[in-house]
C-alpha cells in the first residue's frame, strides 16, 4: 500500500474541513447539505482505505507496515520526526473511527437538519475525524500529542457547538481544562522519556522499556504521566467530571466523540504504550485499580440519573474503566509472572481494544437512539418519556439490541469483549474481579432502567400528546440499523485473534463457568430493573426514600463538581491564592514602584526649598563651593 494513501486516510478529512471552511461556508452557505456530503465522501474514502490497510496489514510480516517519516524540526543533534505506522492496533482503530464516524455523519444529515450552524458542524466533524485518525496512525509520541490536542480542541468546539447556551459554553471549557490538566502529565512524561532515551518513537520506546534500558523510577513516573493524560481523555477517576457535562453538545457528537472514539483515545494510548506500562508494576497496578474503581464508581452514578444522555455518559466512563481494567489486570499478570511477557503483551492489548471495538458500536448506537428519542420528544429527561416503543419501533429495537450488548448478553458483541476482561481480572487480580462483576449487575440495571422508562409504560410528556410522536427519518434510521448489526456481530469478528488474543467458539464460550456467572449477574440486573420500572412490583419512590443518603450521594455525583469547581478552583485558587497574588501585584510590587516615585517627589518638595530664586544666594553658594574645592585640593594634594 503506497504511503500516500495511508497519509490520505487522515488527510482527507482535513481536506474536507478546509473545503467546507474556505469554500462551502463562505460561498455556498445557501446549500448547507453540500458540506455534509463532502464530509461523508471524505470519511467514506478513508473507510475504504482503512479496510485496504487492514487487508494489507493482515498479510504483512508481524502485522506492521513501515511508513517513511519526515523531519519536523532539526536543531543540532535534536531531530524531531513525524511519521505514521500501520500495525494491527492502528488498523483496528482506523476501522472503528472511520465506520462509526461515517454512520454518525449520515445520521447527522437528518439530526442537524435546519440548524444554523450546519456547515460549521460538519467542518468540525471533519476536523475531528482527521485528528482522530492521525492520532491512531502517529508513530511517535510528539506527533500523537499533536493530534491528541487536536481531538481535544474539536471536542471543545463541538461541546460548545451551541455556544449561545451558557451551559454548553461552560461544559466545553470544563472539558478542555480537565483534559488539559491530564495532558500536563502526558507532556511531562514525553519530556522525561525523551530526556532518558533521546527518542519520541513509540516502537523504540517500547523496546527500550522491555530491555530495561529506561530506569525503574523514570519508567514508573513516565508511565504514570502518560496515564494521567489517558485518564483525562478517557474521563477516568479523578478526572471524570467533564464527560457528563459534555453531553451539552449535539447528540451525534456525543455518539462519535464522547462515546466511541475520542474518549477511547486514552485506552488506545495505554494500549499503544502497553510494554512501557507492563514494565512498571506500580504503573500498571495503578491503571488496573483506577480502571476497576472508575467502572463501578461511574456505574453507581449512572443508576440514578434522569437525563438519558447522562446515564449513557456515566455508562461510557464505566465501560472505559473496564477497558483500563482489562489492560491493567493483564499487565499485573505479566509483572507478577502469571503470564509470559510475550503472550501477555498481545493479550492485554487484545482484551482492552476488543472491548473498545465492540463498545464503539453499541455505545454510539445508544447515543444515536437517545438522539432519535429526543428528536421526537424534544427532551432528554426520561421522566417526560415513556411508551415510545409503539411510536418508534425501529429506535426501540436497535436501542434494545445495543442495551443487551452493553449488558453483555450472549451472543451479542458486548458479551465477548466483556468476557475477556472479566477473565483477565479473575485470573490476575481477583479483588478487582469482584468490583467488575458488581459493575456488570449495575450496568444491566441502569441500561434497562432507561429502556423501561423510555420505551415502556405510558407517555408522560406534558406539552404534546403522544400523537405528535413519530419515528425518525430514514437517513437517521439506516445508520442505526447498520450499527445495530455491528453491535450484534462485532464480537464474532476475529478482532481478538488479530490483535493476538485468545479465540472462543460460538457455543464453547458458554461452557466456561465464568460466562454463566456474568450472565447471571447481568440477568439479575435486568430483572431488578423490570421489577422496579417495568412491572412496578417495587416502588421506585419508596426505594429512593429508603436509601435516601445513598441516592443523594449518587445523584449529587459524590459532590465532585462542587469539590473541584467551587472549593478547589474558585475558593482556593481564583478567589484565594490568585486573588492574593493579584493584591500583591497591585499593592506590593506596583506599590513599591509608585512608592519610589512618590518618595522621589516627597524628597523633592523638601529639597527644592533650597532654591530661593535669589541670584545672590546662588552666587554665595557658588563662591563657598569654589572655596571648598580649592581647600580640598590644597589639603589632599
Amino acid at each position, binding site marked *: 500500500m503506497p504511503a500516500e494513501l495511508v497519509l490520505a486516510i487522515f488527510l482527507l478529512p482535513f481536506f474536507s474541513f478546509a473545503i467546507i471552511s474556505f469554500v462551502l461556508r463562505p460561498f455556498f452557505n445557501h446549500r448547507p447539505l453540500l458540506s455534509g456530503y463532502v464530509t461523508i465522501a471524505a470519511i467514506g474514502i478513508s473507510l475504504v482505505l482503512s479496510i485496504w490497510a487492514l487487508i494489507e496489514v493482515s498479510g504483512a510480516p508481524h502485522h506492521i507496515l513501515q511508513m517513511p517519516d519526515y523531519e519536523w524540526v532539526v536543531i543540532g543533534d535534536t531531530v524531531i520526526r513525524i511519521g505514521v505506522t500501520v500495525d494491527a492496533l492502528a488498523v483496528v482503530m482506523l476501522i472503528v473511527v472511520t465506520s462509526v464516524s461515517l454512520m454518525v455523519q449520515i445520521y447527522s444529515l437528518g439530526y442537524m437538519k435546519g440548524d444554523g450552524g450546519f456547515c460549521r458542524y460538519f467542518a468540525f466533524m471533519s476536523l475531528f475525524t482527521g485528528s482522530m485518525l492521525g492520532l491512531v496512525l502517529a508513530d511517535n509520541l510528539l506527533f500523537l500529542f499533536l493530534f491528541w490536542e487536536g481531538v481535544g480542541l474539536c471536542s471543545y468546539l463541538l461541546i460548545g457547538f451551541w455556544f449561545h447556551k451558557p451551559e454548553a459554553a461552560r461544559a466545553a471549557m470544563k472539558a478542555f481544562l480537565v483534559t488539559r490538566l491530564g495532558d500536563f502529565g502526558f507532556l511531562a512524561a514525553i519530556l522525561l522519556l525523551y530526556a532518558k532515551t533521546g527518542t519520541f518513537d513509540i516502537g523504540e520506546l517500547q523496546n527500550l522499556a522491555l530491555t530495561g534500558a529506561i530506569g525503574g523510577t523514570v519508567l514508573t513516573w513516565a508511565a504514570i504521566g502518560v496515564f494521567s493524560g489517558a485518564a483525562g481523555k478517557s474521563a477516568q477517576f479523578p478526572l471524570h467530571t467533564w464527560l457528563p457535562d459534555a453531553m451539552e453538545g449535539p447528540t451525534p457528537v456525543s455518539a462519535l466523540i464522547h462515546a466511541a472514539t475520542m474518549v477511547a483515545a486514552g485506552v488506545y494510548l495505554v494500549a499503544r504504550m502497553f510494554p512501557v506500562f507492563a514494565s512498571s508494576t506500580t504503573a500498571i497496578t495503578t491503571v488496573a485499580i483506577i480502571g476497576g474503581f472508575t467502572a463501578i464508581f461511574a456505574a453507581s452514578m449512572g443508576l440514578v440519573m434522569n437525563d438519558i444522555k447522562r446515564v449513557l455518559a456515566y455508562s461510557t466512563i464505566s465501560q472505559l474503566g473496564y477497558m483500563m481494567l482489562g489492560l491493567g489486570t493483564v499487565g499485573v499478570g505479566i509483572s507478577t509472572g502469571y503470564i509470559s511477557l510475550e503472550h501477555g503483551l498481545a493479550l492485554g492489548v487484545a482484551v482492552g481494544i476488543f472491548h473498545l471495538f465492540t463498545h464503539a458500536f453499541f455505545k454510539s448506537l445508544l447515543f444515536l437512539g437517545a438522539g432519535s428519542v429526543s428528536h421526537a420528544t424534544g427532551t432528554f429527561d426520561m421522566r417526560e418519556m415513556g411508551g415510545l416503543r409503539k411510536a418508534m419501533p425501529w429506535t426501540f429495537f436497535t436501542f434494545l439490541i445495543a442495551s443487551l450488548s452493553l449488558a453483555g448478553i450472549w451472543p451479542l458483541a458486548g458479551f465477548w469483549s466483556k468476557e475477556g476482561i472479566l477473565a483477565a481480572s479473575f485470573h490476575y487480580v481477583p479483588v478487582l474481579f469482584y468490583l467488575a462483576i458488581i459493575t456488570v449487575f449495575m450496568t444491566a440495571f441502569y441500561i434497562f432502567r432507561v429502556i423501561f422508562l423510555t420505551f415502556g409504560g405510558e407517555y408522560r410528556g406534558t406539552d404534546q400528546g403522544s400523537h405528535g410522536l413519530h419515528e425518525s427519518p430514514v437517513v437517521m434510521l439506516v445508520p442505526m440499523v447498520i450499527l445495530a448489526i455491528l453491535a450484534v456481530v462485532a464480537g464474532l469478528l476475529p478482532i481478538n485473534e488479530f490483535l493476538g488474543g485468545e479465540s472462543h467458539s460460538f457455543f464453547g464460550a458458554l461452557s466456561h463457568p465464568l460466562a454463566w456467572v456474568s450472565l447471571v449477574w447481568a440477568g439479575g440486573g435486568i430483572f431488578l430493573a423490570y421489577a422496579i420500572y417495568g412491572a412496578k412490583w417495587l416502588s421506585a419512590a419508596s426505594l429512593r426514600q429508603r436509601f435516601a443518603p445513598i441516592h443523594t450521594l449518587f445523584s449529587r455525583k459524590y459532590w465532585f463538581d462542587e469539590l473541584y469547581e467551587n472549593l478547589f478552583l474558585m475558593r482556593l485558587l481564583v478567589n484565594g491564592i490568585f486573588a492574593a497574588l493579584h493584591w500583591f501585584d497591585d499593592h506590593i510590587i506596583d506599590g513599591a514602584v509608585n512608592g519610589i516615585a512618590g518618595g522621589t517627589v516627597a524628597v523633592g518638595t523638601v529639597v*527644592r526649598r533650597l*532654591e530661593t*530664586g*535669589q*541670584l*545672590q544666594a546662588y552666587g*554665595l553658594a557658588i*563662591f563657598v563651593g569654589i572655596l571648598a574645592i580649592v581647600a580640598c585640593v590644597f589639603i589632599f594634594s
Partner: protein
Amino acid sequence: MGVGLEHFLILSAVLFAIGLYGVLAKKNAVVILMSIEIMLSAVNIAMVAFSRYSQSITGQVFVIFIMVVAAAEAAVGLALIIAIYRRRKTVDAEKFDLMKW
C-alpha cells in the same frame, strides 16, 4: 624695591574681593553689574601681570577679548535691568525671585 608680580596679584585679589562683596551683598542690580565689571577688571589685571611675567603675549590677547565681551555683557545686562525695571518698577535683586521653587 620695584613693583613685582605679587603686587599686581594683591591688587587683583583685593579688587576681586571688593567685586565679589558687591555682587553678593548689594541689592541694587546696577551696583551688582558694576561689581561684576570690577571682578572682570581684577581678572584682567592678573592676566596682564602673568602675561608680562611669563613673557607671553597670550594673556594680553585674552584681556582684549575679555574687555570686548565685558562691554557687550554690560550692554546686555543693563538692557535686561531696564527691561526688568519697566515691568516691575524696581531693580532690587532680592525681589527677583521668579525662579523660586
